[in-house]
């Protein structure tokens, strides 16, 4: 499933077995996205949350 990076416009290839919540990165600019929705072979991405001070184990 292909879509475009909203940051740099490069083509973003999302694996066909991706699931909602999975993270994908733009190979060109490294912008990180989260898979928001998958329907009928098309994928909707949203920017992933940035690392927070309280993130961890």
């Amino acid at each position, binding site marked *: 499933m292909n879509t475009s990076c909203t940051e740099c416009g490069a083509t973003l290839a999302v694996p066909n077995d991706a699931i909602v*919540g*999975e993270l994908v990165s733009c190979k060109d600019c490294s912008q990180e996205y989260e898979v928001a929705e998958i329907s009928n072979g098309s994928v909707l991405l949203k920017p992933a949350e940035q690392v927070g*001070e*309280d993130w*961890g184990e």
Partner: protein
Amino acid sequence: MKVSITFDRLRWEEKALSEAAEAAGVEATLVDSKGLIFEVPKKHPDLGDVVLQRCISHYRSSILTLMLEGAGLKVINSHDVAERCSNKLATSIALANAKVPTPRTFLALTSEAAEEAADKLGYPFVLKPFTGSWGRMVTVVRDRSTLQSLIEYKEELANPQEQHMYYLQEFIRRPPRDIRAIVAGDNIVACVYRIAPPGEWRTNVARGAVSKAFKPDTELKEIILKAAEAVGGGILGVDAMEPESGYLVHEVNNTVEFKGAQSAVDTDIPAQLIKYVSQVARR
């Protein structure tokens, strides 16, 4: 039996847990916590018999677990355990009270008191944030002038807990590695060394440490299980060090990451964790 695995960032671990559940015939659903809405106290989405809490954000995890337990759901780990593990002072208190060997630790509530505590502890010592992970902002303080500089930096932080209060811990001379044990209930699922990368004293996998399997001796096994019990039990990552004087437990992690450990051991860690989740769900 139905299990929900709540997350806010879908990592390898959560996918592996989901796959392990499927392989074990356990109905498990990955649930993005960022989309959940509750009406206090009891109206909530159908999350099944037990929730495996895997949020990466401590505060989101804590609030969500509080809500889930308030709604009557069983959560691994409980809110009490999560709070005890996510605050290093609370962990230290629990370990010390349970007589688990742990490094000498001081709390200071002002910068002046921090300097006094440092004198009592002696240099070098380790300054750690109360909340945080992956070795972030964990610093070896080698002399008073370094501490004074760190105090100036800390006073610029926005978080009042980290801005004005100080958690100081004895610097332990050890090999360039520590021990990570993954515990589920009273079972040590896996035990690995975490070997610090060149030029780094911290042994977090997030800092580039490499995992290597090893078999803990009887003494270490007892200490690991006692540490897990001291914080309240559940699925935990117990971190220990091995100075010449004997084992010391320095941290217990509530939402244990195990990708690094899995790369080093044959045991199927997610399968073992799901087995524990199933046992808890049946209780």
